[in-house]
């Protein structure tokens, strides 16, 4: 296996390096990738077309919204996949093998710190989600942070404590609803007679101009993304940490 690995690494590496000389210089503003109308359009026209100052968010949620929808689907798929692979629904002996997880010792300092931190983390997550149009961040980042706050609960106390907040069913509902929110925007555009995910037409049902409809819809889909990502991040963690039993965490 080692020699096979070496051979493939050497061949691939040589192949990749041989093409480096052909690349435009690093940071060259006139390279094809940077000067072609595609990226130029995204830089110069995004604001005019969508009113979103953060070009990344605009491109992510609107121009390439279809990609992003499937990005969310990837996360969702991973969550469902991990449940289907790992989750043990029956109450037979689950943790056969594997080291015994350490006895849980409630630690005052950790507990208190987390208790203080978690609301702040969640608040920050909400900020990241909501303010993604104007600053770095958006549904993904915010969702991951929000999910991390639940993970922190599970880590600092134990999994049952986190489950009070997010029982398994609720997690899955959240994840599904997140995607439905996203796709719902697309579907709504479709019912109003435009193509899938063409938010501009939504100005007919929300009081805004087409451009503003895009702006607001992007916020909507970011929230959908955040729902899914939050739920699935926690779901993946809870499955991995309990080896699919959902009984006790680390």
């Amino acid at each position, binding site marked *: 296996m080692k020699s096979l690995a070496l051979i493939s690494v050497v061949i691939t590496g040589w192949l990749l390096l041989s093409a480096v000389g052909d690349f435009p210089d690093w*940071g060259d503003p006139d390279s094809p990738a940077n000067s072609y109308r595609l990226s130029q359009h995204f830089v110069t026209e995004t604001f005019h077309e969508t009113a979103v100052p*953060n070009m*990344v*968010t605009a491109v992510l949620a609107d121009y390439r919204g279809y990609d992003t929808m499937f990005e969310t689907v990837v996360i969702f798929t991973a969550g469902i996949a991990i449940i289907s692979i790992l989750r043990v629904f029956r109450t037979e002996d689950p943790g056969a093998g*594997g*080291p015994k*997880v350490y006895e849980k010792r409630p630690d005052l300092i950790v507990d208190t710190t987390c208790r203080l931190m978690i609301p702040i983390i969640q608040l920050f997550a909400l900020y*990241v989600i909501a303010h993604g149009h104007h600053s*770095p*961040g*958006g549904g*993904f*980042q915010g969702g*991951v*942070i929000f*999910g*991390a706050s639940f*993970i922190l609960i599970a*880590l600092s106390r134990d999994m049952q404590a986190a489950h009070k907040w997010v029982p398994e069913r609720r997690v899955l509902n959240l994840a599904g609803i997140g995607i439905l929110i996203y796709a719902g925007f697309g579907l709504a555009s479709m019912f109003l007679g435009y193509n899938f995910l063409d938010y501009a037409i939504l100005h007919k049902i929300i009081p805004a101009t087409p451009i503003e409809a895009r702006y607001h819809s992007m916020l909507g889909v970011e929230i959908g993304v955040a729902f899914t990502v939050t739920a699935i*991040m926690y779901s*993946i*963690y809870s499955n*991995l*940490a*309990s*080896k699919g039993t959902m009984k006790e965490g*680390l």
Partner: protein
Amino acid sequence: MIWQFDLIILVFLVITAIISLQVKDLLAASMIYGVYSFLMCLLWAGMAAVDVAFTEAAVGAGVSSVFLIATVFRTSRRSSD
């Protein structure tokens, strides 16, 4: 974008990557992978890719490491290579 800064991080990236793959304790490997991700995140922030850096900080250095550690706790810390 300061290329000297980038170069140093890149060198550290290679080093952390190698260490995280060579160290026999998987918990240590996971932690060093977290370091690797964090360095990567720094690098990208330096390259003006703030959104990517943000995501990497949350996903790569944060959640991924937690997933790895969870698995290591649930399986075994020892690695033969």
